[in-house]
């Protein structure tokens, strides 16, 4: 009886600890959401999202330059990273490469995934210094592309790996080439996973500040060409957070970022569910 009691007490104790730790996690996360939504919504106005700062006054006007800058940076970067990533992910399959080579590539991609984004930033900066060009939208896109390639590639790779062998063999037996099978069968079958990977990369790219801090620079104007430097929402928050008069703008930018992340996450769920219908089990 003595032993049994001890065991039951241990069970109860750990259950309390678990609930406590879940409360800590959810509590801290609710505080973050609460802070951003409450402060962001109160500093949000039509002016904030439709105007750029007036010349010479960073704190006046709105954050339109940041919103557009973020979109101009993240969408092309995700597009390029997708094109590169899909080629690598398809090529890593057994049909094309011996497994030692694909394992090696996967290993390098895993390391690249783990490399802090600031390293990509400084890597691109070195190349920029070497070429003698200043900060620009283009450099920011390159940095974000490098950051997103491993993320998008690895998650696409995981879903393409799951395609049943029978499906591939079916395509081969009808006389299609490896490339045709990869592009027409694997890509379609793994489409939900590919989409989820792309959205994951987009979410990571749009929120990353460290890689674009030196590469895309900062500007109060909306960039007119890819050689202009541009602001983005994360760099905007980073530049404004410490000034009390800049905090409303920082909060508004954080609010918009949070909404974008939320939209990406929800649409990823809905779209993958929708496209799963077309997948052959």
């Amino acid at each position, binding site marked *: 009886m003595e032993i049994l009691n001890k*065991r039951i007490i*241990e*069970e109860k104790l750990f*259950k309390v*600890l*678990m*609930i406590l*730790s*879940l409360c800590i*996690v959810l509590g*801290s*996360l609710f*505080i*973050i959401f609460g*802070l*951003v939504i409450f402060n962001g919504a109160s500093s949000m106005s039509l002016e904030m999202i439709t105007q750029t700062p007036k010349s010479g006054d960073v704190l006046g006007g709105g954050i339109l330059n940041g919103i557009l800058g973020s979109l101009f940076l993240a969408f092309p970067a995700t597009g390029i990273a997708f094109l*590169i990533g899909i*080629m*690598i992910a398809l*090529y*890593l399959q057994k049909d*094309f490469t011996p497994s030692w080579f694909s394992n090696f590539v996967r*290993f*390098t*991609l*895993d*390391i690249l995934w*783990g*490399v*802090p984004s*600031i*390293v990509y930033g*400084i*890597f691109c*900066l*070195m*190349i920029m210094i070497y070429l003698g060009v200043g900060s620009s939208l283009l450099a920011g896109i390159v940095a974000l592309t490098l950051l997103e*390639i491993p993320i998008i590639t690895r998650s696409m790779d995981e879903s393409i790996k799951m395609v049943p062998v029978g499906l591939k063999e079916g395509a081969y037996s009808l006389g299609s*080439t*490896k*490339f*045709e099978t990869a592009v027409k069968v694997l890509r379609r079958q793994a489409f939900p996973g590919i989409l989820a990977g792309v959205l*994951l990369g987009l979410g990571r790219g749009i*929120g*990353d*500040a*460290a890689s674009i*801090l030196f590469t895309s620079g900062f500007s109060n104007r909306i960039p007119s060409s890819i050689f202009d430097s541009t602001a983005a929402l*994360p760099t905007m*928050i*980073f530049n404004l*957070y*410490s000034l009390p008069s800049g905090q409303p703008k*920082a*909060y508004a930018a*954080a609010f918009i*970022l949070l909404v974008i*992340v939320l939209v*990406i*996450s929800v649409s990823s769920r809905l779209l993958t569910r929708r496209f799963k219908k077309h997948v052959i089990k």
Partner: protein
Amino acid sequence: MNARKLRDFIGTKLMLIVTLFTSALFFAIFLLLLFRSALVLQTEPITDILFSSTWHPDNGQFGLAPIIIGTMLTTGIALIIAIPISLLSAIYIVEYAPRRVRKTIRPFIDVLAGVPSVVYGLCAFLFLVPLVKDFIAPWFGVQTTGLCIFTASITLAIMVFPIIISLCIESFDAIPTALKEASLSVGATKWETVKKVVLRASAPGVIAAILLGFGRAFGETIAVNMVVGGIPIVPKSLFQPGETLASLIASKYGELMAIPLQESALMLVALILFVVVFLFNILGVLVLRRAKKRWKY
């Protein structure tokens, strides 16, 4: 027929080139960083740089010891806080929570894993920093500005929660039910089953989750930069400001890039970040291989 073969040939070769290019990127980053940090490595031996504690770029002293200690402190404390809390939460979500609670919490955790680090930094700066300054530090009888190692560690811990939790949930879910049922049927309590069956069977997954959490905390730049204080001295207490490797690059690139030797020192810092991530990845592969052999079912 020939057109199709040609397309197959061109397509395959294009894919090969892109793959090789991306793998080469890994070496390119490493070699370029090494090449650019050669200047500072020539002026001082690497041991001096790593273990000397004076960071005075103007005098040509690039002792990285305070910054390395700061990085180890913030990352270490963050993980010490985050690992038990996230593990217990994940266990509760998978094993104890009712289905409905589970279904609502999971998407929420996924969203949180995607929240940009700069947003965490902003919230930490405006909420946690005053909290540490006015309540937590006085409670320990210390005076601080709130911008300190402790605040940075807490911020990192909160950032790491969703990563470890969601990966742990995935690996707990993958354990066959029969394994748990076997343990319960011989009279083990639920916690005993978790402790002796679930945690062991999912050990590789849990280790992978912790390593990923480590990577995130170690390389985090922006959020840490916003709350750590940014002073490269060896911190005497947790409530003193410090500096981490990644954060140093972000705060100093503007002033240091003009002078070759100082720029080279920053490149060395980036190289250290890269090498540590590389070593931890290798460690991860080795540990996972062993763990999979040790705890297979």
